[in-house]
């Protein structure tokens, strides 16, 4: 399969801070890749390198067979602006025209706005839109130039469930027509719903790069859920949360955890041991990594 974007042993420093540390990654045509990582893991730096905003300190970055710094290469990509920075005084239609002027093969304005449910807003100034509407405009802009590869950074942050589903449909439709997507999200549900391949980054390195199922299985963590008050210190707990009166514990070794729990004599009820979600797998991978450092 054709590689649309490639990072080869890329290192990027900001002064003393090492944001990326020997990262190699290929994005192939037709893929939908989820990029996961906590804040400061290097996700934004990686995307900034692919879209030509920054250069690597060492290593190579290729975009559509050339340098991302070459504007001609960027004809084939689409990027979402941060919705907080959209020019307040311009109308939605004017912004679409402005971005469209950069792309000879652009999508017709009416069609693009229609696809993202923005037709009614064409005459509205950006400053007057709600956060969710701005977000939809920002995502629509990424698709203006009929890109081969889109970079979607937090595409549905701040949207309600309904709007999020609509946007997911749009992204899926693009993917089904052969489009390639690199997506970051805080919502792991979003990555699970859209991406086939997940790349987990932490501390500037690629910690895992596989299918959603494989990443989940790879770490072999389980979720132990129970109702109890005042739990004692338990071994191998990677994370815990309290939901609707139930305590959820994420662990690599559920058997030992249960043994220790029983041994401690703490009263509990409603014990469940389940396979994890991607979120829990992600937590496990990044916290394991943290333990080494």
């Amino acid at each position, binding site marked *: 399969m054709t590689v649309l974007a490639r990072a080869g042993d890329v290192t990027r420093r900001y002064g003393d801070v090492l944001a990326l540390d020997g990262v190699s990654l290929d994005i192939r045509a037709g893929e939908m890749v989820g990029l996961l990582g906590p804040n400061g893991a290097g996700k934004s730096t990686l995307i900034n390198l692919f*879209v*030509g*905003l*920054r*250069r690597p300190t060492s290593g190579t970055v290729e975009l559509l067979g050339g340098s991302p710094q070459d*504007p*001609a*290469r*960027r*004809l084939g*990509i689409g*990027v*979402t*602006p*941060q919705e*907080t*920075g*959209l*020019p307040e*005084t*311009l109308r939605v239609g*004017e912004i679409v*025209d*402005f*971005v469209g*002027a*950069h*792309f000879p093969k652009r999508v017709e304005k009416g069609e693009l706005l229609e696809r993202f449910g923005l037709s009614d807003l064409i005459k509205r*100034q950006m400053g007057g839109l709600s956060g969710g509407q701005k977000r939809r405009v920002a995502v629509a802009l990424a698709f203006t*130039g009929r890109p081969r590869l889109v970079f979607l950074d937090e595409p549905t942050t701040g949207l309600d469930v309904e709007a999020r589903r609509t946007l997911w449909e749009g992204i899926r439709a693009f993917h089904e027509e052969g489009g390639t997507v690199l997506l970051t999200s805080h919502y792991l549900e979003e990555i699970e719903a859209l991406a086939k391949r997940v790349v987990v980054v932490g501390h500037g390195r690629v910690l895992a790069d596989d299918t959603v199922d494989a990443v989940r299985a790879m770490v072999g963590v389980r979720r132990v859920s129970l109702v109890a008050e005042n739990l004692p210190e338990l071994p191998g707990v990677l994370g815990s949360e309290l939901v609707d009166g139930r305590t959820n514990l994420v662990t690599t070794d559920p058997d030992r955890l249960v043994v220790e729990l029983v041994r401690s004599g703490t009263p509990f009820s409603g014990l469940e041991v389940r396979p994890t979600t991607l979120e829990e797998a992600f937590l496990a991978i990044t916290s394991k990594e943290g333990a080494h450092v």
Partner: protein
Amino acid sequence: MSSLVAAHTRFFVIEQLRVPIGILASALFPAISMLAFVVPFAGDDPQAATQATGSLMFFGSMSSALISLSIVVSQDREQPWNTYVRTLPAGPFPRFAGRILSGFAVMVLSVIPSLLVGALFTEATATPAQLLIGLVVLIVTGIPFMLIGLFVGFTLSARATLAVSQLLFFPLAILGGLLIPPQILPGFIEVVSPFTPARGAAELLWWVTTDHAPDLVAVIALAVWTVVAAVAASWAYRRDEGRRFK
């Protein structure tokens, strides 16, 4: 390429027209000065009134070039939108050119009120040819002040730009003889005046619209200032890109 320059120019012009206070600020002060000082004191003398109209029109265009431009540039640099635009398939040229061209458009708009006051309420006169050449000179001599504005805007934060651009603007305008005609400037100012950029611009404007003989030292000094400002502005632009986007 030209369609990209047009797109960027239109973007900036729309942005500025939607918040007309910036243009008004550049346009109203000189127009009010015309009404308050030129109309009562020099309105009956064609030569003095024409010269004063030219000076105050340049005052307006200089304010839009130096103050307004530096402020929008420095504010833009702090917006994430600026980062997004850099990911679009275009080099830095269309944006830079759009900035300059939209600057010209705003400049022309900001001199209209002074021009109207001069034409309607004073004896200031100019043939259509003089007026046209005068406007061309006004735009061309605005370039060094745009470059100074770009230098300030690309070097400083939005907050600092607000103060620094004003601090540069008023002394330059006064030293250049835009508010008070050079003949009645105090002696020590008249010594410095020809070496400051606004004086050269004013000399050229007076020369093409009245029978004033231009001070060559001031014109040469303006040319030197233009080169210095161009070097400084492009240095600041590259430094800004290099610092934030290396």
